[in-house]
């Protein structure tokens, strides 16, 4: 018989071991589905790997996909540190995309346009995140529900825009007009899609890490998240910290949308995000809410997404496996987190 016992301390190597354990468990669990689809498990995973990380082009494609998830992962990690349960990164990303696309369509010098796109996108994301945060601080509305539901509101508002007043008159499709060519983010490697936004995302992670670990705002975020009562007693304005966190989180998610508009799609369409906002939750959890961990976690999920399409073509396993892997990875990580607080003891054997 086994039972859970409370741990008194958590070894440091757990921080690395747990996500790896969760990922390993995920791959094992999902291999059953691959086998059910009639493909060889190792072959399918092999294709996934080579297609996502096997050569330099594949790696750039994976990085392009990882960039938005680094931003949404950071957005969620920051929010969850303060226990502001922001499930709304998806909507904040879309708002950021719309705002930056709107700004990018105005003729002006390229660098200025890119800067203003980033500012507008971050502001739009922050404004959306402010809604659930204000509702929670002022009226004690559950932020999980309000931020989640707001995603649909933003999504359908975006649909209404691109089906209606904002519809691209040139193509006639439900997509927005493109941004100015001069506002397109520069490509860093000839012949790839690796754009400036990817680098910004990679820089954002250590910046956010510094903010959380080394600034008074970061200190207040951590303390508020872990124990709001002690924070209040210690003179921290808990409500103010929650609002600041929401603004920061929303701005980061908004930047994910900016990168997609400026570096990948150059316009807004209904499927501009294949759920990057939700993937951000998986990324943040795999990273154990550590901003530096967000980068490898986002690259892992991006590799799964890029790899899943190639695997689907090569083996006939539906690309939906990518979503299953994501979901399983989140559940596996949540179970793995149990081991930070508990350990398994065998009982009854000793006698």
């Amino acid at each position, binding site marked *: *018989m086994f*039972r859970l*016992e409370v741990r*008194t*301390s958590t070894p440091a190597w757990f921080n690395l071991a747990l996500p790896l354990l969760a990922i390993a468990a995920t791959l094992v669990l999902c291999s059953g589905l691959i086998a059910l689809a009639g493909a060889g498990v190792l072959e399918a995973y092999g294709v996934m790997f080579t297609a996502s990380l096997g050569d330099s082009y594949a790696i750039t494609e994976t990085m392009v996909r990882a960039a938005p998830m680094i931003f949404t992962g950071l957005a969620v990690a920051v929010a969850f540190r303060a226990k502001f349960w922001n499930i709304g990164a998806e909507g904040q990303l879309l708002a950021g995309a719309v705002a930056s696309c709107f700004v990018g369509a105005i003729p002006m010098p390229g660098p200025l346009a890119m800067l203003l796109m980033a500012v507008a996108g971050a502001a739009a994301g922050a404004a959306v995140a402010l809604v659930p945060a204000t509702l929670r601080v002022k009226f004690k509305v559950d932020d999980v529900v309000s931020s989640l539901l707001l995603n649909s509101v933003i999504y359908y508002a975006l649909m209404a825009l691109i089906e209606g007043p904002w519809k691209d008159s040139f193509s006639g499709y439900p997509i927005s007009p493109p941004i100015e060519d001069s506002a397109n983010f520069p490509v860093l490697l000839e012949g790839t899609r690796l754009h400036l936004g990817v680098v910004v995302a990679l820089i954002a992670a250590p910046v956010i890490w510094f903010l959380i670990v*080394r*600034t*008074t*705002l*970061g*200190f*207040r975020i*951590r*303390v508020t998240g*872990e*124990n709001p*009562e*002690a*924070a*209040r*007693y*210690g*003179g*921290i304005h808990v409500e103010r910290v929650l609002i600041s966190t929401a603004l920061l989180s929303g701005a980061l998610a908004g930047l994910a949308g900016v990168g997609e508009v400026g570096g990948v799609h150059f316009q807004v369409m209904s499927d501009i995000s294949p759920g990057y906002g939700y993937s951000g939750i998986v990324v943040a959890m795999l990273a154990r809410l550590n901003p530096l961990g967000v980068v490898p976690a986002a690259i892992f999920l991006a590799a799964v997404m890029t790899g899943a399409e190639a695997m689907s073509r090569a083996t006939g396993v539906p690309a939906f496996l990518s979503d299953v892997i994501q979901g399983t990875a989140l559940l596996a990580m949540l179970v793995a987190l149990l081991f930070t607080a508990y350990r398994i*003891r065998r*009982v*009854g054997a*000793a006698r």
Partner: protein
Amino acid sequence: MPTPAPLIEMRGITKSFGAVKANEVVDLSVAPGEILGLLGENGAGKTTLMNVLFGAYAPDAGEIFIQGQPVRITSSADALAAGIGMVHQHFHLAPRLTVLENLLIGIPGRSGRIDRAGGLARLAEIRRQHGLTLDPDLPVSALSVGEQQRLEIVKALFRGARLLILDEPTAVLAPTEVDGLFSALRSMAAQGLGIIFISHKLNEVRALTHRCTVLRHGRVAGRVDDPANTTSAAMAQLMCGHEIVPPARGPSTPGAAVLTLDGISTSQHSGTALRDVSLSVRAGEILGIAGVSGNGQRALAEVISGTRAPDAGRMTIAGQKVSGFSPREVQALGLGRIPEDRMTTGLVTNLPLADSMVLPRIGTAAFSSKGLLKPDAIRAFAEAQIKAYDIRCPGPMTRAGALSGGNLQKALLARELAFDPKVLVVSQPTRGLDIGAARFIHEKFLDMRAKGCGIIVIGEDLEELLVLCDRIAVMYEGRIVGTLDSADATVARLGLMMTGAEGHS
């Protein structure tokens, strides 16, 4: 010599956590009708031992016998089935359910329906046997703390407990409630139940128990066969391994008032409101605030600590009027604060100890500048305090929650005293602490008093207040009903005032 077979016997219990031996070859037995005191400082292994008995931990070695039969207890369900009931320090009750419903939790009903009639009959029987009265239809949230404890005891008896473990049951009770508890326990023992009574309060142990087992560092340090005729000092020495001398409060030469409250009233927000409270503490003086818990002490502590603004009245710290009642304002005026609840209000258990130690002053130049933390200064501060106050922990980066209560209280004391407060407000300074740690805290208070700090101690332990304080004010229903010089104060007189019997003075 025929002795009755022990109701319960633990033999050679050993339990380690990593390198720490929480229990090492511990023997313990309780006979039917016996009240056994289980003594020991925090960390001596009392809780681990009781958790082994109650099935929460599996021992590494050792055996448990019930009425001579070896038993294996691997869960609380096993323990209950073996007739062992435990009343934890923190109650395990569902506040929205009624007394009867709480009793019936986990008890199989009849054909899927709650057996109300059967439950009422059993409750009536327990009342008849032990004089424990409870209204079966009141929701638990309407019960006083003492009544909730009674319900926990009844719950154990309801399930057929023949051995009752009580973990520091008197910590939450008023003096009159303690008397009630003791007479109930005595009557239960007289009817053949065994009781294990865990407490730090030696006078209570001497008054109640028939025999004591004393633990120190996980081992049995000694047994006391006649607690009533053994001195508290002798027992304390067994617990600590060395002699304990009560702190001596020298004569005081109080200076000017460093904290004054004038006509402070609060609205009924949560708990009892303050009604026209005026008091003052002078430099070099310790003022005690006595009272049965729930008579406005919490509101008083909150107002002084700057976490609640009063509706009326004025407060001054070191002559300066407090205008905004924020933690930062009162702190800046020279007030040090130690909250009643270390774990929930004082510290952030999941973060490093150093974070908790700098929390109230993180925005000051000592620990940050221009929004950037000074990690080296924070670490150095924490390390210095850990050393100065002998806080037992691996280092400043240890999770605060891993420290024992005494060490946490030292850390909270250190974080305030390091800034030389002019006034210190503390609630329940030694609740749950062992003799050694309590002694340390008391000495620090007396040191601060000698240095001219004014201290206000809000507490329920009258003996502690009498030892520490120069004056003691008594609160009843949100008012100060009177203030006594400690020379004139006795437990009896204070106890009477705490019931509101004595009018304004």
